[in-house]
């Protein structure tokens, strides 16, 4: 189901004074969930806010649902839902009041009570926005982004600072949106969030997309998996290496601690364990480490993601 891109960004440049926030960024997002992943200051928010029509590109072009977000804003706005990184609500408004208000700005809004129930906002009662917890404020902002039944939702760090339970509730909602045919663009600096939710991940660093693909593709590309086991020190690594496929490497990292790097599949695991059996070795601990997006990011940028 590869249809028209929902977002198409070409050679986007955006500067703030002398600082270049986005530097020739290309991004195509199709239907489904696209995660824009990168460390703080990578240009995620600037990119998304340009798509939302908040910022004018210094150069390059941006199309969202085929429209220019600045010049065709009036046409675009009813079709998108926006969750800002923070704020966006009258400090004296109650959660349900604000959500009902945003619903009134749309022609066919969701059932507000059901949405309040779904996101656990019922417990906010008569508390005004400024006195809500951070998690409640985030969930309200999320509810405001989806209540108008948009085609495309932008979520800017939707789970930053949430507890695990609230994070899961947000993830579940994103999955339901996707299942119902709503496209989602979300920025995050959480690897697991991108791996869990996204059909497509764009890794941003220094104002450009440095890699894009499905989480599986990204983790496969250039990256191999690792198998570790422990046994008695001084095993014949050369003999193990002979038993393994040609593109694998094996080493004793510290006495008694062994590492095999290569394409780790059931066959490889069987080869290693049968080699151990032949040599009378009991692998005390054996573990398989899959290459994660975190490793991919580290390799691509030489940086930790959460810097």
């Amino acid at each position, binding site marked *: 189901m590869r249809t028209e891109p929902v977002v198409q960004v070409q050679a986007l440049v955006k500067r703030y004074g002398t600082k270049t926030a986005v530097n020739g960024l290309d991004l195509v997002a199709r239907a489904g969930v696209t995660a824009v992943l990168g460390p703080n200051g990578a240009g995620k928010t600037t990119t998304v806010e340009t798509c939302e029509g*908040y910022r004018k590109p210094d150069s390059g072009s941006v199309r969202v649902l085929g429209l220019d977000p600045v010049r065709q804003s009036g046409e675009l706005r*009813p079709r998108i839902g*926006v969750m800002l990184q923070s704020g*966006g609500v009258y400090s004296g408004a109650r959660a349900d009041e604000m959500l009902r208000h945003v619903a009134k700005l749309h022609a066919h809004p*969701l059932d507000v009570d*059901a949405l309040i129930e779904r996101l656990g906002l019922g417990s906010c009662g008569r508390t005004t926005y400024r006195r809500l917890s951070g998690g409640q404020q985030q969930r309200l902002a999320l509810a405001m982004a989806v209540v108008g039944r948009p085609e495309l939702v932008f979520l800017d760090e939707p789970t930053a600072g949430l507890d695990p339970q609230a994070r899961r509730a947000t993830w579940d909602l994103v999955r339901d949106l996707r299942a119902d045919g709503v496209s989602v663009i979300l920025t995050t600096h959480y690897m697991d969030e991108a791996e869990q939710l996204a059909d497509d991940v764009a890794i941003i660093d220094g104002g450009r997309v440095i890699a894009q693909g499905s989480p599986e593709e990204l983790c496969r590309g250039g990256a191999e998996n690792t198998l570790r086991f422990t046994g008695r020190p001084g095993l014949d690594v050369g003999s193990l290496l002979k038993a393994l496929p040609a593109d694998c490497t094996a080493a004793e990292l510290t006495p008694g601690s062994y590492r095999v790097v290569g394409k780790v599949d059931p066959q490889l695991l069987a080869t290693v364990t049968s080699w151990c059996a032949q040599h009378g070795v009991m692998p005390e601990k054996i573990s398989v480490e899959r290459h994660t997006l975190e490793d991919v990011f580290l390799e691509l940028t030489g940086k930790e993601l959460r810097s």
Partner: protein
Amino acid sequence: MTTAGTGTYSPKPGAAPLPRMIAAQAALETKMLLRNGEQLLLTVVIPTLLLVLFSSVDIVDTGAGEAVDFLAPGILALAVMSTAFTGQAIATGFERRYGVLKRLASSPLPRWALMTAKTVSVLVTEVLQIVLLTVIAFALGWSPQGNPLAVLLLLILGTAAFSGLGLLMAGTLKAEATLAAANLVFILLLVGGGVIVPLDKFPAGAQDVLGLLPISALSDGLRDVVQHGAGMPWGDLGILAVWAVVGLGAAGRFFRWE
């Protein structure tokens, strides 16, 4: 990898009809204002207290006749200023600071419709203030006269002038600076704008300058009509019109949404 959804969230986008959006926005803005204690202090409590206090206690020499006849027009001008200028500046400044204006800017509500709703909310609040203050003034023995149309024109132009200045402040300064400046200006104009202290108590040179302030034009114009039964106060209307054009023009030019 398509999972069938339940259809709850299936896209069905669309903006609500404009009048419904504006009505909803105006209702919410008014509700926020009436719920805010500091705003009520400014728009209701202070004008009421000043009216009652200065009408019943002879502190300021208000000239010949009943004190309330002098004070009521000034207090009405103060009420307009408190809502259109001070209240609107502070509320809008904090809406800008907390991303409310930003979030609304990506909703289906057009910016002009947001400003229209704000104006409706200001006008609704003013009507409530004027009804309340009028009732109190009558209870204090007020006997107004003059042309209601002239009064209406003054109130509308005064609202436009103060709104422009309030929005200019809210859209260019930090929220805290707006809060401080709007309150300071409120007090300065309360004292020096002919609201409770007649302008002729000031030195002659100061009077000429003070007379050009929007609050002086509004209170002086209202007083000419309501207390003295004058015709159209063209001079004061002209001063207010200039402030309105300059203020709204500058606000439109320099207002920053975030």
